[in-house]
């Protein structure tokens, strides 16, 4: 620690300035500097090197991880990722639960063919129980060593979560309202009626619905087991929380708009009846586009320009081979409807409203006459220019009046006044 040259952050001394400079350029020094800023004590070179080594090893182990870590993650980002991961897990869980349920149902039906309804119920309970326990056994075994969360594999984690969920599972029977707490009815239909009237719980396309009870059971499981909102997939901490959310947000309906939402409940439906005619089929596929168009209707304006229509139809003609008939897309400024009409956005209304004089293209004959013309015409009467002139005249008049007034002030109104000074 002798010498003239020192490094305060690393508490070192150097014999020559060259040494000091070299030191200043090292990563170690920079690290210590940062520590100093963070009001932490400096570390020795040895410790620093070991740290670096450990880090580089970790990096080489997991490249993807390294990339993520390199980026400075904000707290928000981290939280979002955690949430995403959790959601992913829950989705998987739900899928598992659904699978289980269906399996059980199939079995139960088989059983029902043989035995009476009472027995069937018993069997069902029995069947469900072992399935659950079977799955539980390995998870319990895995959970036993009490390893910290991070070191569990994903499967293990999922199983553990599943267990937790199953423990806190609340069975919502079919006669009970999905959204109210402890509101039971005498049968399933009255319950549905209540939910429809009080919560707006509407079951879409009832014509093709084959398994109404199954659908409601699935939803009850989603709420009771998964604690999930049926509309926005909001994850509640408990059944009460998710129920409060659904009631507050009016999320008491079955979403039936996007493709995924439809697929989610598609197993309870049977649309084969509608496949009979092609026309009906196309009608059905057309629905989503119509829905979108309806939604946007208040925002979009019809650009009823013939030219554009013609253009649009031409475009359609060209692309007829590889594009479906109902062809709807948004090119950023205009919405192209399948009919060939282009719909412009309201914000551009003022431009669509413009009624510009079309540019006149002269034929050669007209051009020749205009080129040969030597007549000089009077300039057209320009109202704006005239107004400007008029204003100028007005101000001129006013100026003159003011001047006159000022002059009048100094006019001698006393004809016999004699200035004493001039005497």
């Amino acid at each position, binding site marked *: 620690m002798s010498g003239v040259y020192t490094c305060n952050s690393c508490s070192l001394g150097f014999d020559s300035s060259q040494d000091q400079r070299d030191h200043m350029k090292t990563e170690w020094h920079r690290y210590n500097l940062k520590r100093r800023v963070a009001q932490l004590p400096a570390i020795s070179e040895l410790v620093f090197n070991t740290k670096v080594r450990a880090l580089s090893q970790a990096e080489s182990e997991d490249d993807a991880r390294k990339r993520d870590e390199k980026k400075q993650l904000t707290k928000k980002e981290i939280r979002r990722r955690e949430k995403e991961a959790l959601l992913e897990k829950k989705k998987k869980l739900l899928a598992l639960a659904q699978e289980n349920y269906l399996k059980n149902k199939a079995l139960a039906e088989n059983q029902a063919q043989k035995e009476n309804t009472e027995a069937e119920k018993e069997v069902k309970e029995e069947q469900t129980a072992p399935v659950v326990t079977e799955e539980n056994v390995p998870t319990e075994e895995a959970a036993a060593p009490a390893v910290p969360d991070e070191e569990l594999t994903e499967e293990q984690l999922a199983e553990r979560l599943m267990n937790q969920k199953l423990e806190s599972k609340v069975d919502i029977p079919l006669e009970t309202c999905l959204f109210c707490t402890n509101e039971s009815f005498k049968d399933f239909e009255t319950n549905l009626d209540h939910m429809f009237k009080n919560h707006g719980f509407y079951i879409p396309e009832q014509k093709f619905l084959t398994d109404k009870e199954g659908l409601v059971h699935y939803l009850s499981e989603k709420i009771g087991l998964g604690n999930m909102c049926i509309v926005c997939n909001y994850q509640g901490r408990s059944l009460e929380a998710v129920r409060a959310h659904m009631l507050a947000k009016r999320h008491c309906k079955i979403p039936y708009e996007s493709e995924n939402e439809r697929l989610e409940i598609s197993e309870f439906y049977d649309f084969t009846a509608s496949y009979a005619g092609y026309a009906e089929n196309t009608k059905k596929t057309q629905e989503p586009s119509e829905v979108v168009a309806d939604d946007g209707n208040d925002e979009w304006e019809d650009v009823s320009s013939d030219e554009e229509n013609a253009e649009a139809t031409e475009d359609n003609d060209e692309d007829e081979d590889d594009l479906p008939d109902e062809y709807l897309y948004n090119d950023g400024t205009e919405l192209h409807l399948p009919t060939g009409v282009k719909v412009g956005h309201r914000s551009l209304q003022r431009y669509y409203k413009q009624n510009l004089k079309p540019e*006149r293209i*002269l*034929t*050669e*004959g*007209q*051009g*020749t*006459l*205009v*080129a*040969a*013309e*030597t*007549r*000089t*015409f009077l300039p057209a009467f320009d109202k704006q220019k005239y107004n400007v002139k008029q204003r100028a005249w007005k101000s001129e008049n006013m100026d003159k009046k003011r001047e006159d007034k000022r002059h009048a002030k100094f006019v001698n109104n006393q004809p016999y006044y004699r200035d004493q000074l001039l005497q």
Partner: protein
Amino acid sequence: MDLAVSHEDSQILLKDKNVLQESVVDKYRTAGQITQTALKYLTGLINDLYHYKTIQRPMTIAELCLLTDSFMVTRLEQFYKNKVNERGIAIPTTIDVDQVSSGWSPEVDDTKNLLNWNKETTSPEDSLFSSVSGILKAGDVIKITLGVHIDGYTSEVSHTMVIYPVAVNEAGATVPAGPLLDVKADAIAATHIATETVVALLACALTPEKLPTSLGNVVNGQLIRLVVDTIARSYNCGVVPGSRVRRIRRFLAGQNEGIVAEREYKGVVWTESHQEAQLLINSDVKDLTVATSSTRSAPSAVPVDDFTVNAGEVFMIDLKIAPLGQVSKKGLITLEVVDSARGKSHRKDELVARAGLFVRDYAQAHALKLKTSRKLLTSIDNNGVYPFKLSHLSPNFPIDPTKDYDEQISALDKDLKSFRLGMSEIANNYLCVETPIEIAKWVPWDHVLKESNQNGALSYDATANLTLPGHEVPLPKLGIAALKLKSLVRSCPETIDLPVVRECTTVVLCDSDVSSGERPELLRLTGGSKTSQPSWIHSDYELNNEDPTVQGIFQLAELVKDKRFGLVVRETQPMKQTVSQGAAEETGMQM
């Protein structure tokens, strides 16, 4: 004027496109052929009607005009299809009888109107009867004028015909009963000779060494005027104002004279001022007017005689000559514009009619109120820059000879009604100018001199329509404006109508690089011996051989005849009789 053409474009349009090349000459030639064929078709029709009498059904002038226009359009269809943007009628057919100088081209629906407006004109002895009724009579001198253009390259023709009383000769053929002996004969002779001489003069511009020495050594405006005036004087005739020998260019074939003040006008024009200068040659009168031409338009737009005819130019020779045999003293030949403003005519010598020809003035812009007029204006703009008749804009035009004639005429009649409504708004806003119907009048000179001139040097008014720049005041030395002259003509009891003879021909001065032979040649697009034969006349006058100018004229005539060493003049011949013309003749039979 809100229209403008860039300098480069105007260079192309006015200069480059007017350079004679093979393709340009071809277009001129085709236009000339169509014009000649149409002229032959119309003269054939008139001969059949009035001389051979093979067509039984009487046909009015309006119908003849319509049929000839249809013929021209159907003929044009066959040439330069999809090769040129614009082609069409350059001058709708006009048939002027006797004192009508120009512009007589009534629509089919005018036939009845004319009889209603001119109730005083009832007997065939009245001089205006042929025009009003549309049926010609023996002794009438009729001027047929028509023209077509292909891509703006225009060929126009005027030819004077005489309706003869007919007789049958020994061979059994129908021939005229005798030559025309009237004062009209003088004018016909003068016009024919003057036209042929000017053609020869223009041919001399290609080979100036062949120009007779008595006429000078260069073909210029003064020489052309001298020659025409000399011939007219020799036959006791006067050149009617509005005659011209002028250069034509692409789309600038004189159809817009008086509307467009044309840049670089090159040509000789005859106006009242030239007559005035002749009449006042011995008196010491100063030019009274202050309005100088340069203040109103570019100096190059003012027609002056200081120009030289050059090879590679196209000229139109349009001469109107009136005989002065009926009058005993000096006088002024002027033109009176016929209009329908008076509503009804109360005198036998007063004609009330409305113009059939219109020209679009592209410098004017106006937002029209009526939908009909807007629609009409669009079709006018599409029609081109040449004069048009309203019937040309109808979908029922041209008349199809294979279909029922009367049905087509009544359909056309119906269209014309809405067109007239639209046209009134268009014309009121100066978007279109009507080509006036003009009648040649003679006023005694002493009556003009007696007229007091209160305005003095400031005699200027804007009532005269279609005057050339620099010639707005008809009598500049006396300071008599157009309005005053008009009232003078109407007030003088001695004023008489003069019959007018008109010949018009278009010639191309081909230098050796575009001529068909080795030598430079003059390509005569229209007129000539084949289609425009002079009528059988006998005039009492003849050219005075002692005058050096007349000697020069005779030499020129010999030069044209000399095939080896003389002037090369090639005439465009009308097309052979084809199916379509046969069909047209068939309809003639049907009618």
